[in-house]
């Protein structure tokens, strides 16, 4: 086994674990992105989960075997292809297993209930930490913009796409996107639990998701500001690798939140003792609106911009909602603008 094998073994094992845990993340009543009856969950559903996991781990074992058994005999180029094939193959097996189980679970799906229930207690839709805290990244970029403007004659020439104005534009777009996502997630997500402790748990789960987005905006603003200020020698900013002391805790915090979300499952439902969990079944979205194995949600008649994911934990956009496309547009703009800018400026 070579030293390059270790990260690959980790990646393959991580993918295996992730696919293994995926059915566990869903809310009660949802199995492989389908709303199924209780009898199925406790009966044939269990067998389906076992078979799905057997396929997932067979794929992972095969990929691990390829990495462990064949590395030394090949030249580096062939070895690279083999490793890539092992990781990609493992992913393909996992996805195929999911789609296989998805089709089987859908055959047992219950009809979508036309009964909707909502609480008449207003909920807190403010941003975690308040609007002032969430504006932090904007202020950070604003100060950077002022410094760039006042030192524009000292900006080294020929920086092209990595120059301060272009970087600033990139930062502004990404911060705007993260904050727009945070605000819309806070306000335009459906509350599924209506009674008991589940209400507070679900709200905490949502606020943590929103908080992650605000922190991501801070991360982008910090990295962009540092890169810009370091490129202007007259400012004397030399943070260098010390930026890791700021970015790393943010990443670790986000990782801790992600792990907590994996543990408590969708909407935080596992954070409540099984006996105290409400009788909510499903996630109040119709199965027919979920496309590509439960990956995308398309429902033009649903006013929610964000809905709980059916694969994994957290929220996904309702791509049938026009407001969601505004967010997608903001996200795509830098991806389209950056190459254009690159071409126009000639690199």
């Amino acid at each position, binding site marked *: 086994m070579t030293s390059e094998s270790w990260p690959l073994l980790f990646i393959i094992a991580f993918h295996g674990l992730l696919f293994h845990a995926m059915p566990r993340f869903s809310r009660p009543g949802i199995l492989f992105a389908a709303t199924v009856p209780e009898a199925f969950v406790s009966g044939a559903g269990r067998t389906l989960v076992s078979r799905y996991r057997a396929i997932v781990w067979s794929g992972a074992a095969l990929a691990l075997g390829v990495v462990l058994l064949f590395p030394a005999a090949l030249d580096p180029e062939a070895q690279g292809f083999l490793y890539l094939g092992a990781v990609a193959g493992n992913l393909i097996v996992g996805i195929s297993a999911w789609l296989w189980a998805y089709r089987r679970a859908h055959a047992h799906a219950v009809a979508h209930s036309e009964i909707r229930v909502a609480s008449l207690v207003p*909920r807190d839709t403010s941003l975690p930490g308040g609007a002032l805290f969430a504006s932090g990244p904007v202020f950070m970029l604003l100060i950077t913009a002022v410094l760039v403007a006042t030192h524009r004659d000292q900006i080294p020439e020929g920086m092209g796409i990595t120059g301060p104005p272009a970087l600033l534009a990139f930062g502004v777009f990404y911060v705007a996107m993260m904050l727009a996502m945070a605000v819309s997630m806070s306000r335009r997500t459906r509350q599924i639990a209506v009674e008991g402790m589940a209400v507070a748990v679900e709200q905490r789960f949502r606020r943590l998701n929103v908080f992650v987005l605000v922190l991501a905006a801070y991360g982008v603003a910090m990295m962009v500001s540092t890169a810009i200020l370091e490129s202007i020698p007259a400012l004397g900013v030399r943070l260098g690798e010390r930026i890791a002391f700021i970015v790393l805790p943010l990443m670790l915090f986000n990782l801790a939140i992600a792990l907590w979300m994996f543990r408590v499952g969708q909407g935080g439902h596992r954070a409540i003792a099984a006996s105290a969990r409400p009788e909510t079944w499903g996630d109040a979205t119709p199965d027919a609106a979920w496309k590509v194995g439960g990956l995308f949600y398309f429902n033009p008649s649903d006013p929610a911009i964000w809905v709980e994911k059916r694969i994994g934990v957290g929220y996904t956009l309702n791509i049938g909602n026009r407001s969601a496309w505004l967010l997608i547009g903001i996200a795509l703009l830098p991806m389209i603008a950056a190459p254009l800018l690159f071409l126009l400026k000639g690199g």
Partner: protein
Amino acid sequence: MAAAPLVSIDLGSPTPAYRQIASDLRRHLVEERLKPGDLLPPIRQLALDLGVHFNTVAIAYRMLADEGWLELKRRRGAVVIARDAPRAMDRNRVDQLLQQLSHTAAELRSAGMSARQISAALQRIAQGAKP
């Protein structure tokens, strides 16, 4: 701790969703589960939770505001207000509702309930109990 008042609608019902919302809210108001000063969710929030168009909730809130139960707050939902003096009876509206009631009574008779049972059920409903 008292349970949070809920609103429930059936999108498969022939009764329009806004009427179902208004009817549920009115029941909570009459039975004093919603008291003067209580804040109701903003229109967008309730519409989102029920998965209906914003206008559906807006119409329901407007109906109850017209009946004197709610004061609508821009962007903040609605506040339950005190209805100190009994409102003057709207004769046309009362006639309309009595007409509906007579149809319902006929349907109940047709379904097998006696006039005495219907009368007892109506009395229970009028006193705020479940039928």
